[in-house]
């Protein structure tokens, strides 16, 4: 095969997407205006749990401009499938029916009780006030441990329990930490997916160990907060039975299937379009009740309908991320070598299961061993229903949770042994490898050079000098102490091999499709099944196609986000787009070249074997003057006046690529903090990230992904956290209270990379969308604990607000034993529960 000269790949081509975005010419869903369009507003429950005893929408109908007002009873037959969940992580998983509009009981604040359709948004919103609802409030379940306690109120009475599922791996006989496994539960196992089994004898490892680190960590709930809130326009397609849904979604192709499953509208009568989408971070990897309601009503009323959520609704009704209680035991010898790891998780589902809710924790399960090579591993995960907003994928989805737990525990281990945290890591790292190598959970990592990233980060940080400064500050009793925190991570990208995804409980279909076609004028269209919402696929895919075809990126137009224009696709999430969708583009473009070669041979009257292709030109080996350009070939293929016998016209090739394995980027981060011990305020002084995501197609885009990812990871560590009160009301209900950091809160990032290609795909690429979010939280918390360890502080929960840090110091000083103190205000749901309002 002809190797394409790498001309554009690897270069920082400016993003093709940006001119429109920065000049306000993007096509957001809310910009769509269709003739006769009406507007939808949702009446949301103010209670976390209540029976609806009376519901009367007639008052709303009397308002001028109101087109309709609907209840769940009225529309129940329109959505036989409810809001579907696409994950089944154990045979016993309890999947409640999730009605787009409730019929008798509300289960979280923001649950939808009724809707109004009106001529404009204001009228619709105001008419909600004319709907009469009587609620009979019931005690809600707002924290996971309480939810599992005997006699707890049930989020779904018909299920008889608040336990959604229990998943175990390697726990057989390991009943000291874990409940005895119930053998009807499905064990992961076989080298199939990220849910591969635990192994070894963790009991024995714990007995043998010189030290056992036993900790509880909390992954607080987070609000994904895409800059563009959710928006949908559903429109009956003129002249057809069918429906078009424009939606600010990450998953037009998945949505088409899910809408069909929910409403019974045949799949081939649904078209989904994702116009420009202003971020998602996983929150738009879902099909929401609002989308289903809009589709159903557009069809019922025969009118285009628009729904745009406001930020308050975005915080109450768009999925939340994380929400996990982690109990972890790490056993090691006095030389720092790990002997075994046991993990027990409670994972907060919220009130209903959205598309992938139960699969999130599972997808991180096999990553708890991190980048360390040891033998004994076991894990148990319970999914728990609460009367809170449903959770689902948020940037990192399962992996940040795992990375945080192991990386925090590694620092505790270093501290316990009086060892340098970098050294403890080195002693447990995998040796560099470039062929798949199993981790302690049996997950096949693709290629690592951990030593490379760690030593480079240490060099960039000037580690020795930092330790000296730290010593000086400690000795002088400076109120501002210096902290140095490490995190060495890996993660799973390139979702994913279809078989492995099936093992994960999410059906399969991890492939991606691309169509590369050359037009008669020599221009190129790439239709991709990925659905970018900020990632810059138009640019990167152009670079890939340009290099393979020997054209320029400007010659290439990338088409995406419309199920009519791109019939097959699996969309964008899980850092899958490049490692799966980009490879499909690469393969399809190569198929074009292969076909072009046959035509060129025909045109040049040479044997196909003698045709060489370079720089967009087919030539005859040995006589370079005899050549045709790929554009000439494309024209000839289109006109089809003279093609090889039996060949179909047109250069138009499709690849549907199913990857053989996931990809595993890795990296080393060092966070330098200054911690004011008098106020608890943490200042990030420096952040060094050395990441390895394999060869880079566009360094500017990769740096952008890292910056954003680091910002969100730092946000989890220091700023963001959902707070509910005991009644299940969202306290952090606006951007005033929910602390998203801005540029002033972030340091200048020092980025560097090493390049360790993945053996799994021909470009060696791995993925980078979530790296920062995964690597950053433990680096930040490790840094704070490092700064405060002379004061006896062993842990600070996230977000490490000034009050938390100050309290950790107070507690440590009051109790010299250094017993771990979980902040009293921390609810076990993983959300902060504020005591009585």
């Amino acid at each position, binding site marked *: 095969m002809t190797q394409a000269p790498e001309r554009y790949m690897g270069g920082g081509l400016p993003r093709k997407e940006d001119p429109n975005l920065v000049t306000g010419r993007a096509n957001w869903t809310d910009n769509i205006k269709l003739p006769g369009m009406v507007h939808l507003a949702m009446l949301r429950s103010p209670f976390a749990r209540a029976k609806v005893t009376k519901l009367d929408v007639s008052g709303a109908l009397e308002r001028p401009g109101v087109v309709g007002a609907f209840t769940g009873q009225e529309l129940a037959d329109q959505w036989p499938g409810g809001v579907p969940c696409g994950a089944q992580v154990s045979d016993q998983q309890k999947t409640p029916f999730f009605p787009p509009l409730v019929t008798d009981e509300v289960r979280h604040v923001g649950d939808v009780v009724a809707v109004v359709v009106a001529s404009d948004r204001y009228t619709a919103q105001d008419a909600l006030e004319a709907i009469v609802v009587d609620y009979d409030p019931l005690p809600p379940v707002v924290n996971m441990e309480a939810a599992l306690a005997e006699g707890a109120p049930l989020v779904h009475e018909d299920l008889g329990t608040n336990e959604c599922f229990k998943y175990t791996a390697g726990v057989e006989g390991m009943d000291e930490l874990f409940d005895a496994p119930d053998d009807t539960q499905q064990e992961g196992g076989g080298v199939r997916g990220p849910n591969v089994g635990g192994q070894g004898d963790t009991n024995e490892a714990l007995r043998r160990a010189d030290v056992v680190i036993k900790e509880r960590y909390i992954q607080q709930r987070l609000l994904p907060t895409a800059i563009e809130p959710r928006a949908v326009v559903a429109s009956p397609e003129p002249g057809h039975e069918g429906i078009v849904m424009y939606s600010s979604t990450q998953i037009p192709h998945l949505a088409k299937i899910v809408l069909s499953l929910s409403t019974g509208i045949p799949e081939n009568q649904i078209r989904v379009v994702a116009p420009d989408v202003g971020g998602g971070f996983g929150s738009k990897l879902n099909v929401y009740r609002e989308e289903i309601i809009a589709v159903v009503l557009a069809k019922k009323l025969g009118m285009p309908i628009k729904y745009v959520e406001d930020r*308050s609704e975005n915080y109450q009704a768009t999925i939340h991320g994380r929400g996990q209680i982690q109990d972890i035991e790490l056993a090691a010898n006095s030389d720092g070598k790990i002997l075994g790891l046991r993990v027990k998780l409670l994972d907060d589902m919220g009130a209903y299961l959205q598309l992938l809710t139960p699969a999130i924790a599972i997808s991180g399960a096999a990553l708890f061993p991190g980048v360390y090579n040891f033998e004994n591993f076991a894990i148990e995960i319970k999914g728990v229903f609460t009367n809170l907003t449903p959770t689902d994928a948020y940037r990192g989805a399962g992996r940040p949770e795992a990375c945080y737990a192991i990386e925090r525990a590694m620092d505790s281990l270093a501290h316990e042994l009086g060892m340098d945290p970098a050294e403890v890591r080195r002693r447990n790292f995998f040796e560099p490898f470039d062929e798949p190598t199993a981790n302690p959970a049996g997950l096949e990592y693709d290629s690592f050079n951990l030593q490379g990233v760690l030593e480079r980060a240490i060099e960039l940080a000037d580690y020795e000098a930092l330790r000296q400064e730290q010593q000086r500050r400690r000795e002088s009793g400076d109120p501002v102490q210096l902290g140095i925190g490490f995190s060495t991570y890996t993660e799973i990208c390139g979702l994913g091999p279809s078989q492995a995804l099936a093992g994960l409980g999410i059906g399969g279909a991890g492939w991606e499709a691309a169509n590369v076609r050359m037009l008669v004028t020599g221009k190129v269209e790439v239709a991709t099944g990925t659905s970018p919402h900020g990632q810059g696929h138009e640019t990167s895919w152009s670079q890939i196609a340009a290099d393979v075809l020997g054209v320029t990126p400007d010659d290439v137009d990338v088409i995406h986000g419309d199920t009519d224009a791109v019939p097959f696709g699996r969309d964008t999430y899980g850092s899958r787009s490049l490692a799966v969708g980009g490879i499909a583009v690469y393969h399809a473009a190569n198929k074009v070249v292969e076909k072009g070669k046959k035509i060129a041979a025909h045109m040049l009257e040479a044997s196909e074997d003698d045709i060489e292709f370079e720089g967009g030109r087919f030539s005859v080996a040995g006589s370079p003057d005899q050549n045709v350009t790929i554009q000439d070939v494309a024209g000839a293929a289109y006109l089809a006046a003279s093609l090889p016998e039996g060949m179909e016209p047109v250069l138009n090739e499709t690849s549907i690529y199913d990857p053989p394995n996931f990809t595993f980027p890795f990296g080393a981060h060092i966070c330098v903090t200054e911690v004011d011990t008098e*106020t608890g305020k943490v200042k990030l002084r420096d952040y060094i990230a050395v990441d390895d995501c394999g060869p880079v197609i566009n360094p500017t885009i990769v740096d952008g992904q890292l910056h954003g990812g680091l910002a969100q990871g730092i946000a989890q560590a220091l700023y963001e956290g959902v707070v509910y009160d005991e009644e299940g009301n969202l306290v952090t209900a606006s951007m005033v209270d929910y602390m998203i950091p801005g540029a002033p*809160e972030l340091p200048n990032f020092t980025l560097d990379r090493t390049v360790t290609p993945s053996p799994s795909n021909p470009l060696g690429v791995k993925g980078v969308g979530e790296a920062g979010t995964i690597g950053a939280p433990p680096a930040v918390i490790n840094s704070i604990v490092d700064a405060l360890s002379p004061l006896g502080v062993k842990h600070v929960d996230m977000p490490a607000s000034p009050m938390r840090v100050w309290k950790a110091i107070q507690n440590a000083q009051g109790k010299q034993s250094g017993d771990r103190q979980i902040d009293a205000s921390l609810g076990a749901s993983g959300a902060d529960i504020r005591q009585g309002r």
Partner: protein
Amino acid sequence: MIPVAFDYEVAESVDHAIELLGQYGDESKLLAGGHSLIPIMRLRLAAPSVLIDLGRLENLRYVRDGGDHLKIGALTRHRDLAFNDMVAEHCGIVGYTAGLLGDPSVQHRGTIGGTLSHGDASGDMPSVITALEGSIVIQGPNGERVVKAADFFQDYMVTDLGEQEVVTEVRVPKLGQNTGWSYKKFARRSQDWAMVGVAAVVERSNGSIGSARIALTAMGATPIRATSVEQALSGASPDAVVEAAQSADEGTSPASDAAASAEFRRHLARVWTQRAVEEALSR
């Protein structure tokens, strides 16, 4: 995030505004920069049926020399104050604090009259004006009156303003060579409201402290003077600051909320008072 429907009137002059207030009564609200009022309307925490816009009263946008004090027009934007030379020279704490309010767009829209009239005890400017012992000029149907800051702020979002009254001017003293100042704002993010704030105006006298005026932000329903610290510092040596600051939270009643417990706010008030007085002494 969608406000209730309302009507909109433009005030052509202060008298016209007063007249409109009389006409519409308590259904109406004055609108200045809108950066406090509009957000609470969007959350439907306020639902005035008429907004009377003062925004075009350019004649209320000024900083003037009043001899021993500065006169600041009520419609002067935070940004104007942050970049005003006369303010920087004579009463730097006002310009400095104006530059800390929210973010640049808040500073370009928000006004000093608005932030004081709103009477939010988490606002920074109310405690600064309180520490300065400034005064507020109010115009109503019966003419003009001047109210001391200490009397103006009465309760949480309650001021001395009558129903038909408009704030027209704010007066702050010129600080002499021997007077240093500091405004210490403790916030998690740069654009956040203060979790706690401390305004300190400290007069030096022969190597010791002459007098200190300290007002606290977000430590109660109104700006609160830290009187026991002020007393302890009066005529004291700078060495007394650490000890004196320990009583900074005396007489305060801070709230407990998602951002901070009352206990933590009290602690911050002590640490921040110490640091504010130390900074004022060095400035």
